[in-house]
C-alpha cells in the first residue's frame, strides 16, 4: 500500500516539474500564475499522500494551510498585477 502511495507522490512531483516547465515557457503571466496555482493544489495533494505514507497527521495541517492560502496569491495577482498589465499598454511579460 505504501509503495503505491509513494509512487503517487512521485507522480505528483512529476506534475510539479511539468508546472515548472510552464512557468519557464509562459508565455503570458496568466499561464505562469495558473502554474503557481497548480503548485498549491499539488502541494495539498503531495502533503496528504505523505501524511499517509509517513504516518504524520500533522502534515494535514500544512496541506490545509496550502489549500487556504493558495487563493490569496491568485487574488493578489488578479487585482494588482494583471489589472495593471491588461489595463496598460503592454499585453504580456
Amino acid at each position, binding site marked *: 500500500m505504501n509503495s503505491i502511495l509513494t509512487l503517487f507522490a512521485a507522480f505528483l512531483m512529476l506534475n510539479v516539474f511539468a508546472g515548472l516547465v510552464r512557468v519557464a515557457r509562459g508565455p503570458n503571466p496568466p499561464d505562469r500564475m495558473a502554474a503557481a496555482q497548480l503548485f498549491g493544489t499539488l502541494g495539498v495533494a503531495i502533503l496528504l499522500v*505523505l501524511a499517509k505514507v509517513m504516518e*504524520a497527521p500533522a502534515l494535514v495541517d500544512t496541506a490545509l*494551510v496550502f489549500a487556504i*492560502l493558495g487563493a490569496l*496569491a491568485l487574488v493578489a495577482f488578479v*487585482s494588482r*498585477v494583471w489589472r495593471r498589465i491588461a489595463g496598460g499598454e503592454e499585453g504580456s*511579460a
Partner: protein
Amino acid sequence: MALVAWRAIFAETLFKCVVLFIAFGLLMSLAWVRLDAPDIALAEAAIGAGITGALMLDALGHVAGEPADRSAGDMPLPGEAPPPAGEPLALVLLAGVGGLMGLLGLAVWGLPEVYRGVAEPALAEVADHPVANAATVVLLDLRAYDTFLEMAVFLVAALGALILKARAIREPRAIPPAHGSEMLHAVAVWLAPLMVLVAGYLLWAGTARSGGAFPAGAMLGAAGVLLFLAQIGRGQIADTRVMRLLLSIGVATFLVAGAAAFLSDRAFLEHAPGTAYAMIVLIEAMITISIGVTLALLYGASALDPRTPEAEPTEERAPS
C-alpha cells in the same frame, strides 16, 4: 530546487521571479517534510509560499513598467529621493556587519573542543513539559528571549511601514482602485472567516503538535490581506490607537511576563512553576495577534498609498 532558487532570483521578468518563488516555497516545504520537520514545513507553507507570494505580487503591481525587463526593479521607490549619502553609509554598515561576523567567528573559534550542543538538555526539558510540542516549548519557554526579540523586529518592521506610508505621498502612477467584483467579494466573505478560524486552530494545535503563533499569525494576516484586496471594510488600514495597541501587544505581553518573573525572583521570562502552559498559550495568542496585524499592515500600508495619491493622510495620524 537549487535551480528553481537560481531562476527565482535571475529570471528575465520580475513576475517570473515571483511565480518561481512561490514554487520554491512549495518545494522548500516538501523538503522540510522529508527532513521530518513538520513545524518548519508548516511555517514555510504559511509564510513563504502563502503570504509572501501575495505580498510580492502586490509589490509587483506597484513597480511601474514591469514587463520590459528586470531592470525595472531597480528604479527608486515612489516618493524616494535617490540617497546621495547612501554609499558611505552602506560601507559603514558593511564594515559593521563584517566586524560582527568576525566577532561571531571568534566566538565560535573559542568554543570548547568537545561541544555537546544544547539539543540533549533541551530535549530532556521538553520531555516533561506541560506543552507537548517540542518546537513550541523551545520557542516560548526555553528560548523565549529569542522569540521576544523577533517580536520586537516585527514591531520595528511595522513602524517602518507606517513611516513609509506617511512619507510616500506622491505616487507617479496610481493603481486604479480595484472596483469590487462580486466574485472577489464572495471569495473574501467566505474565505476570510475561514482563515481566522484556521488561525485559531493552528494556535491551539501548536500546544500539542505542529502549529503555533507564526503560522497562525500568518493566517490571520492573510485574512487581513484578503479583506484589503476585496476592499471590504474601509479597504485601508488606519493608524489608530487600537491598531498600535494590537501591533505592540505581543512585545508588551512578553515584557509584562518578563517583568513579573523579575518581581518574583525568577529569571527574565522564566515561567512560574505550574503556570507554564497558561503563560505559553497567553503569549502565543498575543503574538499571533501582533504578527497577524503586522503582516496585514505591511500589506495594507502599500495598498493604501496609490489610492490617495494627493491627499496627505493627516486624519489618520494620531499625534504621537
